[in-house]
């Protein structure tokens, strides 16, 4: 029996090529999209799961009056591990600023280093492959590096006990080599230094008041989280941690399992985002849904043709179960071939998809959950999608056949509903894509006001700081370099955000106000193209400026409530001085974050204070590519004139700023692609439906033409009903799209408006796509010879 069902299913598929291929291809594309997205989702969800202690590791988070903050003071980790029996182990983590490392004649910038306690390697599963924790991670000059970093510096040589040169000033001894950090780890690093390193080289404050560290703890389970949080906070109070004791902050715990997908604030390691997991899961289901709707549509539309076959089968003795089994086996064959094609598509698309997502995904057929996913996809498509068509076809009374009519089948409500919902989904996706694109453009436009000009930046490394004046003068010798300045960090980074500020008229309520304090050199505002709205900029003509004069940005003026700020007093810690000017707000950070209040003041010791800073170089407008290259060569020669070790490096500021949106942009691009795929599948379905309708109406069209109807008249006849469907679909999709995108835009502090044209454009696009798809069929039908059409019957 089964063999017969399958045999006839295959026969049926072969003998109805257009219908079958549209159905199978549509389904295959849908399943392929579903798989790709699910692989991505699965990878995102797999973050940090490889740690053996994943259930017991927590991060200490500082709850402030505003957004929570992931910093904590250096003494916290050892103190709580000693005093609290609940804490099994603890480690501090400090991100090392960029260093130049060298070995023999090789040298590289290393951005990705951490300082941790030895317990770190007991808590997290980052195994050593050479050396050991006990012998290679104890001295201040020990360094542990990853396999790839070892390869980079030492090639095939044994890295253990090799000496790495740091900034030409000192040496670190390789004490161990780690297995490469898995891509699905939220902690990414190339090398690690033991905490004792910091006691030798003071990179940051190590007191109870300096929140420069992340603290990770491994707790004894089961655990009373509330209770432990209280105890940690109490310990900080007992040790006179000022932020906790006086500002009313407290400590809480965040599980390792939440760290990747639930960043605690916009400034957190913003790697993953649960929101996108939801969005993409929904898109995956939509793809599958659209493909299934196609399937149902085409199959039920075909029902009219199959009435005859089904009726005959019934007259020769089939009952309903036979018919359903027959149809189902057919749908199953559809789904199965679609799945096989889908897997082929996934395999082919994988490298491109990986490039887009910057992941290393692969399809493992033998993984049980992949098999389960596959089987459920097939069952879902073949059976659920086949359910309605199978039942609706099987219930025909065989007499319908003899009556040669298909009453009640000409306008099945459900099929219209499905076509309309398919259109509605397509329109919804188009609107979403448009809004997303618009928001991305808005960010691009808004995020930097100087797009005509070019600003380059290079790190203050080796002798750049000490010889800054020389460097600046030499740079300015080039005719196309109009301004040069320095800042203590990249403007995209949040640096020195502090409550330790005072101004004339500060109230108690403003005690928790954070102001970002920024050290710059002369000409900073000119270089960055920021205009002063009040007062003046720092100037060499006023020797008093250095160290005591402040310039606030407009947001700082607004939040401090200063009226007429120029001339009023401002203080950072105990350095008090006059406010000499107000500068316009800049948008160097991402627009997901609110505007920052900022206070600028001059470097007093640039080589020391600017150690992690950058030099900014503004190039005059409208330079050709060759001119820009010439400027860069000039900058390089200046660099080489003062530096011996540090490799030359420069960046375009606008690219640095755009990089902050890279993840988002990449995801949005993916979203656009999958929307397009969904729309493509809808079109396939529409095409199939149109083909089918035109076929069915061949006779009617023949009669109409015999009676004198024109070709355009016939085309109108065929397109009219589709037009109505598109209209209804618009009415459904618009409010839905508005609602969803409004929610999404809420993520941005600065956001574009949704305008009516996006909706009209989406509706129009859907209409045009539908029109194009069906007109081919309509024209073919309309231009056919009417005699032939009539003879057909």
């Amino acid at each position, binding site marked *: *029996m089964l063999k*017969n069902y399958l045999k*006839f299913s295959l*026969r*049926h598929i072969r*003998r109805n090529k257009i219908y079958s291929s549209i159905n199978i291809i549509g389904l295959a594309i849908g399943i392929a999209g579903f798989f790709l997205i699910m692989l991505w989702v699965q990878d995102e969800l797999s973050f940090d799961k490889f740690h053996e202690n994943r259930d017991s590791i927590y991060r200490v988070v500082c709850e402030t009056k505003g957004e929570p903050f992931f910093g904590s003071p250096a003494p916290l980790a050892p103190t709580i591990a000693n005093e609290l029996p609940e804490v099994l182990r603890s480690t501090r983590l400090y991100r090392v600023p960029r260093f130049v490392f060298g070995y023999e004649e090789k040298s590289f910038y290393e951005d990705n280093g951490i300082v941790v306690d030895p317990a770190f390697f007991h808590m997290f599963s980052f195994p050593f492959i050479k050396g050991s924790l006990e012998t290679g991670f104890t001295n201040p000059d020990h360094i542990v590096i990853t396999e790839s970093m070892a390869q980079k510096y030492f090639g095939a040589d044994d890295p253990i006990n090799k000496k790495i040169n740091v900034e030409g000033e000192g040496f670190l001894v390789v004490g161990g080599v780690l297995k490469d950090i898995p891509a699905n780890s939220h902690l990414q690093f190339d090398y690690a230094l033991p905490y004792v390193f910091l006691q030798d080289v003071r990179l940051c404050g190590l007191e109870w008041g300096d929140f420069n560290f992340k603290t990770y703890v491994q707790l004894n389970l089961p655990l009373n989280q509330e209770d432990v949080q209280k105890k940690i906070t109490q310990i900080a109070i007992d040790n006179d941690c000022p932020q906790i004791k006086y500002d009313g902050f407290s400590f809480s715990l965040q599980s390792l399992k939440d760290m990747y997908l639930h960043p605690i604030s916009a400034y957190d390691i913003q790697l993953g985002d649960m929101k996108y997991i939801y969005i993409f899961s929904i898109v995956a289901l939509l793809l599958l849904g659209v493909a299934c709707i196609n399937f149902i549509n085409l199959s039920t539309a075909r029902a009219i043709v199959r009435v*005859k*076959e089904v*009726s*005959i*089968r*019934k*007259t*020769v*003795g*089939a*009952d*309903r179960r*036979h018919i359903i089994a027959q149809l189902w086996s057919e749908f199953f064959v559809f789904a199965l071939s679609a799945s096989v094609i889908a897997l082929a598509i996934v395999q082919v698309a994988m490298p491109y998809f990986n490039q887009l997502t910057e992941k290393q995904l692969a399809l493992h057929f033998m993984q049980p959950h992949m098999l389960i996913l596959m089987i459920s996809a097939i069952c879902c498509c073949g059976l659920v999608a086949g359910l309605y068509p199978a039942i609706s076809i099987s219930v025909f*009374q*065989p*007499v319908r*056949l*003899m009556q040669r009519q298909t009453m009640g089948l000409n306008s099945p409500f459900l099929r219209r509903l499905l076509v309309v919902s398919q259109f509605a989904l397509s329109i919804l996706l188009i609107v979403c894509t448009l809004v997303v694109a618009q928001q991305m453009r808005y960010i691009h436009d808004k995020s930097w006001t100087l797009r005509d000009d070019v600003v380059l930046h290079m790190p203050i490394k080796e002798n750049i700081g000490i010889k800054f004046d020389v460097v600046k003068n030499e740079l300015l010798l080039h005719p196309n370099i109009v301004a040069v300045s320095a800042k203590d960090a990249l403007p995209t980074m949040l640096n020195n955000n502090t409550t330790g500020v005072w101004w004339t008229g500060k109230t108690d309520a403003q005690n928790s106000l954070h102001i970002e304090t920024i050290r710059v050199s002369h000409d900073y505002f000119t270089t960055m193209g920021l205009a002063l709205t009040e007062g003046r900029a720092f100037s060499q003509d006023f020797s008093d400026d250095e160290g005591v004069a402040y310039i606030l940005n407009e947001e700082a003026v607004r939040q401090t409530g200063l009226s007429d700020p120029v001339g009023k007093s401002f203080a950072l810690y105990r350095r008090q001085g006059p406010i000499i000017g107000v500068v316009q707000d800049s948008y160097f950070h991402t627009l997901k974050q609110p505007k920052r209040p900022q206070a600028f003041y001059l470097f007093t010791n640039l080589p020391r204070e600017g150690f992690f800073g950058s030099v900014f170089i503004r190039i005059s407008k409208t330079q050709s590519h060759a001119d820009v290259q010439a400027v860069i060569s000039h900058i390089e020669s200046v660099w080489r004139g003062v530096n011996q070790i540090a490799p030359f490096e420069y960046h375009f500021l606008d690219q640095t700023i755009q990089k902050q949106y890279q993840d988002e942009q990449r995801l949005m691009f993916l979203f656009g692609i999958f929307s397009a795929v969904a729309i493509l599948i809808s079109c396939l379905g529409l095409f199939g439906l149109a083909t089918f309708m035109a076929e069915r109406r061949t006779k009617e069209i023949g009669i109409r033409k015999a009676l004198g109807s024109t070709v355009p008249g016939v085309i109108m006849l065929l397109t009219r009903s589709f037009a109505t469907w598109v209209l209804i679909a618009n009415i459904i999709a618009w409010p839905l799209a508005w609602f969803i995108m409004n929610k999404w835009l809420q993520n941005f502090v600065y956001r574009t408006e949704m305008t009516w044209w996006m909706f009209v454009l989406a509706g129009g696009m859907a209409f045009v796509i539908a029109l194009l798809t069906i007109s081919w069929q309509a024209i073919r039908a309309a231009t056919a010879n009417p005699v032939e059409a009539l003879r057909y019957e």
Partner: protein
Amino acid sequence: MIKLIDIEKYYANKFVKTFVLRNISLDIQEGEFLTIMGPSGAGKSTLLHIVGMLDDMSSGEYYFYDEPVHQLKEKDRTRLHQQNIGFVFQQYHLIDDLTVYENLETPLIYKKVKGSERKSMVADMLDRFSIVAKKDLFPNQLSGGQQQLVAIARALIINPKLILADEPTGNLNSKQGFEIMDMLKELNDQGVTIVQVTHDEKKAEYGNRIVNLLDGWMEESGT
């Protein structure tokens, strides 16, 4: 064999009932060759479908042997029909996707006849109708007469006790038509009960009893 008592059939739409059959009472004996005649639209086909259990009646009683068909569940009706009734139509109604061989095999599959047995039954039937050479062709590769032969072969393959033929020669030329009628007559001689619908007086004479239908009312004319 068949006993119809006061059969009525109507189609109801919102306000009106359109009667197709009224007060039909009919006995058909085993081995009979009954002819139903009447103008187009009189309800002949409807009556045949009801007898063949392809359609429900609106009211009335129907006994097939002693089984009250009007009270049976769909499953049991299908079984009765599967075992006992073969259909032949004016438009042949072969399944387009299946070869001659497979068309013949289909009723046996539904009747759950074993594979080996099925093979020999189909082979017999192909032999008997001299269509062995055509067994792998699809219906659209055959002439009308050949298709009707296959259709009759398909009706016969389950060894039915009753054959219902709705204008079986309507689409054939007269030579083919009489060949088909001869074949039905032969079957009747072997004991198969036959009910046919026809417009043609000559073909009506093959039967041994004629029933006339007019607007759903039945009148029996003598033999």
